[in-house]
């Protein structure tokens, strides 16, 4: 038996075994909120916002949709009262930590959360996307979590300049609360949150510094090329003028492990 029949929010569906609830929901067009999930990255299961209620043999329990693999006939409720109650409290706790930011703000408004534990001002919700994208997709592991429990945070080793960071900005790109800001100032790229500072190479056409030298080296190594195609060495603005405005798919390790 490679597939099973499940019921999701009243809809019957036959699905392949070990598919996640989140994927099923996406297929049938049910929206489940997520904070620590990204389709290109191994599910991490940390934010718990995607929680749903499942019923198997008359027993109910709560599981996270992003990483729960369906094995047998279950009934799934993605948005009932109990589920909403849990999601609200998650959001309330996150507001106590970071306040109204990015996706937290969006969902808090959607679920009409009233904060009882105050409005915090940290920058990060510890979803792990930045750490995991850097490890799994970029293949660099320049940053990691440090400490544990409530002290946990995202940081570079010893909170110093991460020597292997290539400045690609993927961490910033995936962050749901925009905690990682990438700033190009003159000929330097600065990513303050992770103490990174990288020298930039100039655009071949307009001479504006735009891409970290280390990133160019990294791509060269990955592609095993001595010289790079101009596409890597020309800034987006000039690309828009000279080439088809299209980025290469940005996966250097071949995506998910």
């Amino acid at each position, binding site marked *: 038996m490679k597939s099973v029949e499940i019921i999701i929010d009243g809809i019957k569906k036959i699905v392949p075994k070990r598919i996640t609830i989140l994927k099923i929901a996406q297929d049938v067009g049910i929206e489940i909120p997520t904070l620590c999930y990204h389709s290109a990255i191994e599910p991490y299961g940390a934010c718990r916002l995607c929680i749903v209620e499942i019923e198997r043999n008359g027993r109910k329990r709560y599981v996270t949709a992003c990483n729960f693999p369906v094995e047998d006939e279950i009934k799934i409720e993605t948005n009932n009262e109990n589920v909403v109650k849990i999601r609200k409290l998650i959001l309330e706790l996150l507001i106590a930590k970071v306040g109204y930011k990015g996706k937290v703000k969006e969902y808090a408004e959607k679920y009409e959360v009233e904060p009882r534990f105050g409005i915090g001002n940290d920058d990060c919700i510890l979803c792990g996307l930045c750490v995991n994208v850097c*490890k799994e997709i970029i293949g660099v*592991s320049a940053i*990691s979590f440090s*400490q544990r429990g409530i002290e946990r945070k995202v*940081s*570079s*080793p010893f909170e110093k300049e*991460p*020597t292997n960071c290539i400045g690609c900005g993927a961490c910033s790109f995936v962050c749901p609360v925009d905690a990682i800001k990438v700033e190009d100032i003159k000929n330097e790229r600065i990513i303050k949150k992770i103490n990174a500072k990288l020298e930039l190479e100039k655009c071949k056409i307009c001479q504006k510094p735009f891409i970290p030298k280390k990133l160019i080296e990294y791509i060269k190594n990955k592609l095993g090329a001595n010289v790079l195609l101009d596409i890597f060495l020309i800034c987006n603005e000039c690309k828009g003028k000279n080439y088809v405005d299209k980025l290469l798919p940005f996966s250097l390790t071949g995506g998910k492990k």
Partner: protein
Amino acid sequence: MRKLEVDKILEKNGWSKNKIVGILQDIQDSYSYLPEDILIYISEKLNIPLSQIYSISTFYRAFSLKPKGKYRIKVCLGTACHVRGGYMIAEFLKNKFGILPGETTEDGLFSFDTVNCLGACAIGPIVVINEKYYGQMDVRKTEKIIKGLENEKNKQF
């Protein structure tokens, strides 16, 4: 010099990436902390991202990134010791040294940590100084021992 020592530890652990926690334990045992340069060296030798080593070093309580004092005092705050008043000893040391658990006095003589159960609960509260266990402790007995250690130091100088 140091590299040789570290190599020995790596050798003992079969140069295995998976044994990184054990390797760091050995480093901690030899140096009483995890020196940054050694961690960088290990990261290069075993090809483990430095971020992962840093992550492990700060996650587990067994590790410290700062040198520990000559006398390493551990006060047990496990449940059995807590209900018998172990927390008072911790409170006392905080006051006495003016440092928080995990820190070391400025003169490098004492460092003070709290731990959760050392498995000698029946004779709690427990205080461990370097490797020696002291049972049925209270604030007074602790103070006496520390005075003794301080005097010993004065004698040496």
